[in-house]
Structures are given as C-alpha cells and as structure tokens.
C-alpha cells in the first residue's frame, strides 16, 4: 500500500473565507450562532438560530462556471483554491491530469435552489420555467461537478452522500484511492449551505436547538448539561490528499499523514445513534492505522449538541479510552454543525491544532452532562503536542465515519 499525506487545506466557515479567519474565530472563542430574523414568522419552525456566513460569495469565479453554482459550490471552489495555494500546486497541474481527482460530499443538492425552483414549479405546474442552471445546482453531486468543471479535473470525480458524514467519507475515499495507487492527488472534502428547510428537517426530529433563540451565542452546547440540539452552519472544507512519494518528489510541505479510516452503518435505527457501532467504527479506524487507544493524543468529536448523539458518542469514547486521559473536544459551539462539511472543516481545524500544539476547548460546555461524563472534556485551551488524532463524523441514517491522522 502507498502512503497518503495531506499537502493542502482550505476552508470556508461561518467565521469567513480561509483558514486564517477560522483560526482567529477559534482563538478568540467566538460563537458564530445568530438569530435569523427571516425565520421569525415561520410557523412550526421552533429553532430560529443558525451559524451563517455573513460574507456572501464573491464574483471572482467567472460566470461560465459560477452560473451553475449555488453557495455550497462557491464555498467548495474557494476552499479548493486555498488548498491548492497552500499546497503550492498550480492550476495547470490540476487540469487535464488523469491522476488528479476530486471527491466532495454534501447532504443534498442546493437546498436554496431546490426550494426556490420547486416552489415555482409546484405553484405554476409549468416546466417551461425550470432553468437549466437550476438543475445543475440541485443535482446530488452539485459541488463536485462544479468544482471539477471549474478546475478542469479529468481524474476520478465522485460525490459522497451520507448527510453529516459525507465530507469525512470523501476524505476516506480519497485516502483509499491514493493508497491503492489509483490517483496521485485528490481534492476532497465537503460543502454545505444554510437554508430554513435544512434547520427545519432537524427541528421536526427534535434535534435542533430551540431554547436559546434569545441567547444564540449560548448554543449549541456539545456535551453540556443544558444542551438542547444542534445549530446548522454552512461552509466548505477541502483538503489535498497526495501520495507520499509524489509529494516528496515535488518538495511539498506535508501537514500530516492519513493513516486510518473506517465507515460503517449501524443497522439498528435510522435516527438513533448506536454507541456500540460508533465504538466499532472508531476502533476499526484506529486499528487500521496500526494504533491503539493509547496512541491517540486527541479526539475531535462529532458532538453536535443533541441529547442523544452526544451521550452515545461519549459512551463510545469511554469504552475506547477507559481511563479518560485522552482529550476530547467538539468545535460545533464555534461554527455550528456544517453537516456534510463538518468532517473536513473540523479535520482542518485539528490539523491547525497539531501545528500550534494547542487543543481548542468545547465552547459552551459549562457543566458536563451526567450522560457525557467519563471522558476528558477540554473546557479550556490545552497546550499539547498532538502526534496522532482521531476525527469522528456521525450521520442520520446510522452512518459512522472515523479518520486517524498523524504528524509527519
């Protein structure tokens, strides 16, 4: 098997465009949750908060490519450009190279366009009013098709679709394609855009935060006694995964090595997290990495602030780290739950922590809940050298994903 390393990273998050903005937000312990005025009068939508990106997508991308891009594709394009820049890879090396691939996941096609286009179609019943560009925004692989067209990618192009595990599955798929020698470089990650229907889908399942509409900065509250659900965010996280020898041959800076990945279904319940299978997923990824629990210096949890999900993840973590000495934190309190983008965005944040030798705490975790105890929760920044970390993503539908990285 070949070895896969991370040589490029790019992010769009509720804090803004770029890793610099993300890091600044994390460093200053800011919560990006806001009250959304436009949702105030929506009947049945009890959660009125979200973590939006205030700066709207710019017009730097030529219209030829931008015309079929909804915000999630624009976020992916900006994140990919940052990833290429950080990797020192010129656009000319990307296009027309069958060994350069692209894998991006998200929960659905553009929810903004799905809503606007189908609202009109259902209202008028007139298919003559359906724009061609709407189709390319609503299709289930919209981000990756747009990104691949924009960059002229002719290697493997795939979309992963497993809701909140989509992005981490994309990184895992890239890892496998690199290890098996099918590709030399792959841009991979996830992208997501905010819409009332997205928050609404969690709200009807009683999974969205509803008690903090008047104090948005206090939610979400991963692992906290007073947590009441998740807050939807938006953005994109894109990494460049590269075959080690290829990276070394071009003198690339290597941020970390991907050494283990696993994804699995729980086979038990469509919306209820299964701690036993979560544990299996994490342990399998760690074992695949040739590691055991003692080798893991940090866990970047999925924990979104839901009652059941956080307790299940805590239970699984307790089983893997019975002595409770491995620091665990969730970043949802800063940037909300960016769903399909959350895995890659938080993976990149974990790589930032690795470089800085600091672990960012779980924001809004004031009192660890009884059902989340037994885990070393990080509540204040910790200075620590991270040599090896585990990143989790769990999705509705019983889909689990876990990825292990180590310093290089």
């Amino acid at each position, binding site marked *: 098997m070949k070895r896969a390393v991370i040589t490029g990273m790019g992010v769009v998050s509720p804090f803004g465009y770029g890793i610099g903005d993300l890091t600044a937000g994390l460093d200053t312990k800011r919560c990006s949750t806001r009250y959304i005025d436009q949702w105030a009068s929506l009947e049945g939508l009890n959660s009125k908060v979200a973590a939006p990106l205030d700066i709207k997508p710019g017009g730097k991308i030529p*219209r*030829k490519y931008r*015309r*079929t891009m909804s915000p999630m594709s624009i976020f992916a394009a900006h994140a990919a450009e940052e990833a290429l820049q950080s990797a020192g890879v010129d656009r000319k090396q990307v296009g027309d190279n069958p060994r350069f691939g692209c894998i991006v996941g998200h929960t659905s096609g553009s929810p903004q366009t799905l809503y606007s286009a189908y609202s009109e179609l259902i209202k008028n019943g007139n298919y*003559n*009013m*359906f*724009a*061609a*560009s709407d189709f390319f925004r609503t299709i289930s692989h919209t981000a990756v098709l747009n990104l691949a067209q924009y960059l002229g990618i002719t290697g493997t192009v795939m979309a992963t679709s497993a809701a909140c595990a989509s992005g981490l599955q994309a990184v895992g798929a890239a890892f496998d394609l690199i290890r098996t020698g099918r590709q030399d470089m792959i841009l991979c990650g996830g992208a997501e855009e905010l819409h009332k229907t997205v928050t609404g889908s969690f709200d009807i399942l009683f999974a969205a935060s509803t008690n903090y509409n008047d104090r948005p900065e206090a939610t979400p509250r991963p692992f906290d006694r007073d947590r009441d659900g998740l807050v939807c965010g938006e953005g994109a996280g894109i990494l460049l995964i590269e075959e080690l020898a290829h990276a070394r041959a071009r003198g690339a800076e290597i941020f970390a090595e991907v050494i283990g990945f696993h994804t699995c279904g729980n086979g038990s319940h469509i919306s209820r997290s299964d701690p036993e299978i979560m544990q299996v997923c994490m342990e399998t990824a760690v074992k695949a990495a040739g590691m055991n629990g003692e080798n893991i210096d940090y866990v970047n949890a999925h924990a979104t602030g839901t009652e059941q999900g956080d307790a299940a993840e805590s239970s699984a973590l307790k089983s893997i780290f019975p002595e409770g000495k491995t620091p665990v934190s969730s970043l949802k309190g800063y940037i909300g739950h960016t769903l399909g983008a959350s895995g890659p965005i938080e993976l990149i944040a974990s790589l930032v922590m690795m470089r800085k030798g600091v672990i960012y705490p779980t924001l809004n975790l004031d009192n660890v809940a009884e059902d989340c105890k037994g885990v070393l929760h990080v509540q204040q920044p910790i200075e620590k050298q991270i040599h090896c970390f585990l990143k989790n993503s769990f999705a509705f539908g019983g889909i689990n994903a876990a990825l292990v990285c180590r310093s290089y």
Partner: protein
Amino acid sequence: MTESDIITAVNEVFCEEFEVPLKELTPESQIFDDLGLDSLDVVDLIVALQKKFGVQVRNDERVREVRTLQDLYDLLEVIKREQTSA
C-alpha cells in the same frame, strides 16, 4: 409594450442574468459569438424572458432562427402581440 420597452426589458435580462455590460448590447450583437452565451445559457435566457414578458417562448420554433439581439427584440414583439391578443 412599446419597441423601446421591449429593448429595455431584454437588455435588462442580459445585464442581470448574464452579466453582459449594457454598452455591449447593440442590435447587431450576435448572441453566441459577441455576447458569449452558449447553449446552456440559451435555456436560461428563454426562462428569464418568459418570466420578464409573461409569455411562452420555449416551444416556439421561431426561436431557433434568432441570431442577433435585433432578432430577439423582433421575435418578442411578435410573440407578445400574439399571446396578448389571443
């Protein structure tokens, strides 16, 4: 709608939907070659014109003969008149 109204409305579609500068919108401009639209854009152009003018254009065979902006102005004037009087 007057001829001037039609020209203004069509030009607005090209400016707003396709980001073509107003100064480039001359009657003799070729929609593909001069204004840079392609076949995918034409689908969206038709949808945008239908919304703007409140008419049906998509299934009209005459749209295939349109080459320049003047052709489009003329066709829309005809279609608008036909569908308004129908």
